[in-house]
């Protein structure tokens, strides 16, 4: 197929005719050029229908040339891994082999079966129709919904994981400029000339903004030369970062600007040389918004027939891409500016049927120019309806009365294949709205401009309602230097000389949005306001009639502005229609809120490199490699990977656990305990501090001794526990739970820094400094003796003592503490020696068949002893008393330590609180599920009265029966009684409440 609409090369064009590119759309092969978007290439090839509308399945064509496009939303990509749902054809650059298809239309966009349904059903589908139906019978809704969902959505999600990578970069600058049109470029140059650090980004592939489609001379030359000149200057300056293809998707508090740079999308589908997209997070001292203005279409009958376009888009296709998207043009405008489009069309050698100007007259230079070219101008009239279905065939034009919204003459018909419309321009206020600033209406330009803000923000050019190019550029220079000055650079003046520009004199524009039809809006042909969701003028008026008067209600009821263009094209028209129908002004009606994303932003880019193995840091101990090599399965504990159990070949988990438990109880086991938090506490008030933080007393703990402690929050609930050892008169080392380590250190610092700064004490984390291995079991001493230079006999090294020694040639601290109830030694060495020492211990233990065990065996062994795990046996609502651990509460401590006061509150004094007990299932082989709920009475109707739950539960290989820890209401005084556990499989099992200490209740084994 030939590019029927491609016209002769003109100087200002931005396509490379020497690089033709082949692409596929809806299965057909076409050609375009480098520099084309899919949209320009499709228009060049004369493709009219590019999709079907969402609700009514109407044929749709390309309307715009930029981020406003509501219709040309495609599926791009050729594989299930690389496909991209919903990119806009107008913003997608062509590359060789690009594959795209429409997102709606079945079996295809030219022949769509749903269209018939759309026509019939359309009448029954006004806004909010689904709130009014599909209700009866109740039971059928889920089936109705299935049907509704069948029609949902535009593109398809990929079905396979993304092969591309993404990353992010942080930047800091004095002046960040958003938009590289004439205003932004001038601002960048002025700011950069002061030496300020400048970043300028634009979402288009080339800088130049509006000038890319303009033919207006600057300094007597093509505007692209002026652009090139400035870009060249900026590029060589060293203090400027230029970011093309970079959308500022969000403007956040404290001048944070989020930018998504598309780095490889224009090169092809899966390019491996760099990340596909990169998010830049810019902290700018000053932000200049130079985002320009978007042209508004007019709202008229059947204005969605392919061939209906924005005037400026038509000019852009002609001037930038060398594409004239039709043969016979009717232009409807409310302003002089759009006359350019007719002139461009005419100069491209095609026929302008007429300019329909809604104003009664205009004498502006462009009007005169057009008339001089022999173009027919019809004043005081409007295009009230379009004929045609898959392409415009003609228009109905009539005199209109905007005041009372009526048609005031007979209708004349013109045949044409293209209708361009311009209702004026709307400043691109989106970014300024992101930080909470509300826009204000400006009557002069009939548009909203940014309102008050607390950000360090400047606006210039089209965004501030300045449209004449000479003013735009001088505004840019001025704003650039002012912003630099505000950032502490330069004196506010600028060196650059204003270029010579001749701006055509323009007559005032008319504030008109909605073209009347001879019938009332409700009966007129559909007049689309927001194309993507098929929102019509009639729909908006209906919403108003039904009482949805707030513009936010209109949005939500009709879906106005909900689409992927977020109302760029239709919002202001919708607001104007609402205002009119409610007899209000547009500023009274107000806008809805523009929020990030400015244009849709790839999830992958927002996540950056924080995916897969980098999603969250995985933390490892110094012995991790050993665990890997020895078959460990790992458990996630916080960010740590801890060995869970070490299965030998062919073993089930349960077998491994039984082996590990028995080995430890009968001989010796070894656990990597390096992940426990360790805090070095030094200072003369360390003891006093511990007294205040822990529930038990610390005043008398002698050097060389260890003690177990429990910490509560001020509400009296346990939140961490561990052993603290006295290293010196004024020095302690505290251990915390693995998951609690960071929190506990912050907790200590909080109290010290905010409440008791007078206490002389310092805290430093030493968690990572120490590798910790616990050897536990009757033979543990024998193992240690082989490699330790100190007498570790019971006489010399008592339970709950710690000593310094050399182990395997390495300086070590050994704590004689036990979490298993067995004779245990916790060996701590500097972590660089962790692996060495571990291996030495393993070698020494070989003759005793030393057995590595993981967290699960550790949990079983400690549970047999009734030791709690904070976070498993407690849940933030458990006091030490509830745990039957009143012994860990100091009764005579002078200071009212953290948590104490709360215990005397009403609820904490109840004697039917849930208390920690042991449970013995009646069936000694049955392991109660952890999390099973407990009831006192077996045969209760639902809802049952639950009195507690199982917190830990295991089969004990050592004891030969299963057992559990649980919390039970008033459980401590119910020992010996039966409870019942109704399980999720419908069975109920019985268990007996007992002491939580199952194994070696006297504690002899750890004391030998």
């Amino acid at each position, binding site marked *: 197929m030939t590019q029927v609409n491609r016209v002769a090369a003109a100087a200002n064009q931005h396509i490379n005719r020497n690089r033709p590119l082949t692409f596929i759309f809806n299965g057909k092969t076409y050609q375009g050029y480098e520099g084309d978007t899919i949209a320009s290439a499709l228009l060049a090839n004369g493709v009219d229908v590019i999709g079907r509308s969402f609700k009514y399945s109407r044929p749709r064509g390309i309307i715009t040339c930029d981020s406003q496009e509501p219709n040309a939303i495609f599926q791009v990509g050729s594989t299930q891994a690389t496909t991209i749902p919903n990119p806009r054809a107008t913003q997608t650059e062509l590359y060789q082999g690009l594959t795209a298809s429409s997102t709606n239309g079945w079996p295809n966009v030219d022949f769509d079966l749903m269209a018939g349904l759309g026509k019939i059903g359309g009448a029954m589908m006004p806004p909010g129709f689904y709130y009014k139906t599909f209700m009866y019978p109740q039971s059928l809704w889920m089936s109705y919904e299935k049907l509704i969902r069948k029609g949902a959505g535009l593109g398809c999600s990929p079905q396979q994981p993304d092969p591309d990578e993404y990353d992010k970069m942080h930047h800091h600058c004095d002046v960040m400029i958003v938009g590289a049109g004439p205003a932004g470029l001038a601002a960048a140059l002025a700011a950069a000339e002061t030496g300020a650090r400048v970043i300028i980004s634009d979402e288009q592939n080339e800088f130049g903004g509006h000038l890319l489609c303009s033919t207006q001379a600057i300094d007597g030359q093509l505007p692209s030369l002026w652009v090139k000149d400035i870009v060249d200057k900026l590029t060589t300056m060293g203090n400027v970062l230029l970011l093309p293809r970079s959308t500022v998707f969000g403007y956040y508090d404290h001048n944070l600007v989020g930018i998504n740079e598309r780095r490889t999308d224009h090169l092809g589908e899966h390019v491996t040389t760099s990340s596909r997209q990169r998010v830049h997070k810019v902290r700018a001292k000053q932000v200049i918004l130079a985002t320009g203005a978007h042209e508004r279409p007019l709202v008229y009958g059947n204005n969605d027939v392919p061939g209906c376009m924005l005037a400026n888009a038509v000019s852009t296709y002609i001037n930038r891409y060398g594409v004239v998207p039709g043969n016979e043009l009717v232009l409807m405008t409310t302003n002089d500016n759009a006359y350019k489009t007719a002139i461009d069309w005419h100069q491209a050698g095609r026929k302008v049927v007429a300019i329909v100007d809604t104003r009664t007259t205009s004498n502006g230079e462009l009007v005169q120019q057009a008339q001089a070219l022999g173009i027919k101008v019809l004043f005081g009239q409007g295009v009230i309806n379009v004929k045609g279905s898959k392409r415009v065939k003609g228009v109905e034009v009539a005199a209109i009365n905007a005041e009372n919204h009526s048609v005031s003459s007979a209708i004349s018909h013109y045949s044409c294949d293209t209708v361009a419309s311009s209702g004026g321009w709307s400043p691109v206020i989106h970014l300024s709205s992101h930080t909470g600033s509300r826009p204000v209406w400006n009557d002069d330009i009939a548009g909203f401009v940014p309102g008050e803000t607390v950000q360090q923000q400047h606006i210039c050019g089209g965004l501030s309602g300045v449209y004449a190019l000479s003013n735009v550029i001088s505004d840019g220079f001025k704003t650039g230097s002012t912003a630099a000055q505000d950032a502490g650079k330069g004196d506010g003046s600028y060196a650059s000389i204003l270029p010579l520009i001749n701006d055509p004199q323009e007559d005032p524009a008319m504030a008109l949005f909605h073209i009347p039809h001879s019938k009332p809006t409700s009966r007129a042909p559909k007049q689309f306001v927001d194309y993507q969701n098929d929102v019509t003028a009639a729909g908006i008026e209906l919403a108003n009639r039904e009482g949805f008067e707030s513009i936010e209600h209109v949005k939500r009821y009709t879906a106005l502005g909900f689409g992927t263009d977020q109302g760029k094209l239709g919002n202001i028209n919708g607001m104007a229609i609402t205002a009119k129908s409610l007899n209000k002004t547009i500023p009274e009606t107000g806008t809805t809120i523009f929020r990030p994303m400015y244009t849709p932003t790839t999830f992958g880019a927002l996540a950056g490199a924080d995916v897969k193995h980098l999603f969250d840091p995985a933390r490892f101990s110094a012995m991790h490699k050993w665990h890997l090599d020895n078959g460990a399965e790992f458990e996630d504990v916080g960010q740590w990977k801890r060995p869970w159990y070490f299965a030998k070949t062919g073993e089930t988990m349960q077998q491994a656990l039984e082996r590990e438990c028995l080995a430890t109880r009968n001989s010796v086991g070894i656990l990597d305990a390096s992940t426990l938090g360790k805090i070095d506490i030094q200072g003369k008030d360390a003891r006093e501090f511990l007294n205040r933080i822990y529930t038990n007393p610390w005043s008398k703990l002698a050097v060389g001794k260890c003690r177990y402690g429990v910490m509560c929050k001020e509400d009296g609930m346990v939140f961490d526990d561990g052993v603290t050892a006295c290293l010196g008169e004024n020095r302690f080392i505290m251990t915390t739970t693995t998951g609690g380590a960071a929190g506990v250190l912050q907790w200590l*610092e*909080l109290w010290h820094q905010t409440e008791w700064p007078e206490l002389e004490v310092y805290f430093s984390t030493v968690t990572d400094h120490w590798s910790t291995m616990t050897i536990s079991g009757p033979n543990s001493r024998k193992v240690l003796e082989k490699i330790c230079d100190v007498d570790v006999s019971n006489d010399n090294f008592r339970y709950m003592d710690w000593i310094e020694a050399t182990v395997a040639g390495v300086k070590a601290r050994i704590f004689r503490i036990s979490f298993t109830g067995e004779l245990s030694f916790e060996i701590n060495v500097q972590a660089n020696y962790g692996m060495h020492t571990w291996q030495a211990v393993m070698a020494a233990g070989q003759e005793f068949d030393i057995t590595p065990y993981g967290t699960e065996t550790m949990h079983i062994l400690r549970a047999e002893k009734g030791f709690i795990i904070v976070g498993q046996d407690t849940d933030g609502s458990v006091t030490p008393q509830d745990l039957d651990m009143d012994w860990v509460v100091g009764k005579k401590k002078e200071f*009212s330590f953290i948590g104490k*006061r709360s215990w005397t509150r009403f609820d904490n004094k109840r004697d039917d609180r849930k208390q920690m007990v042991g449970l013995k299932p009646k069936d000694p082989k049955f392991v109660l599920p952890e999390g099973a709920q407990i009831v006192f009475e077996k045969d209760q109707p639902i809802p049952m009265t639950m009195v507690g739950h199982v917190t830990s539960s295991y089969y004990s290989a050592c004891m030969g029966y299963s057992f559990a820890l649980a919390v039970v209401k008033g459980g401590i005084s119910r020992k010996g009684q039966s409870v019942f556990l109704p399980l999720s499989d419908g069975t109920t099992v019985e268990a007996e409440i007992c002491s939580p200490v199952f194994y070696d209740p006297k504690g002899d084994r750890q004391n030998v």
Partner: protein
Amino acid sequence: MLLIHCPYCEEMREEEEFSPAGQAHIVRPLDPEVLSDEEWARYLFFRKNPRGLHHEMWLHTHGCRKYFNVTRNTVTYQIMESYKMGQQPSVTASEKGQS
């Protein structure tokens, strides 16, 4: 995302270096045991939660590990000042119903 001045590191840092730590200037009662349950509950749970100026604590988690105070507008998110622990704010709002 906020940009916060750490009075100890003496410069502006990204929000992600910090952790918010709630309302500032809540003094722990010297003798909790003499308080009524109501008074104790007040200390534990009741907060000013103002719409407007708020004095709040932040921890420079990844920087100097120090807690400090910030006066911030909870509507505009503007930060008026940062000051060290133990110091008083210089920017305050008089709020109705507050002692």
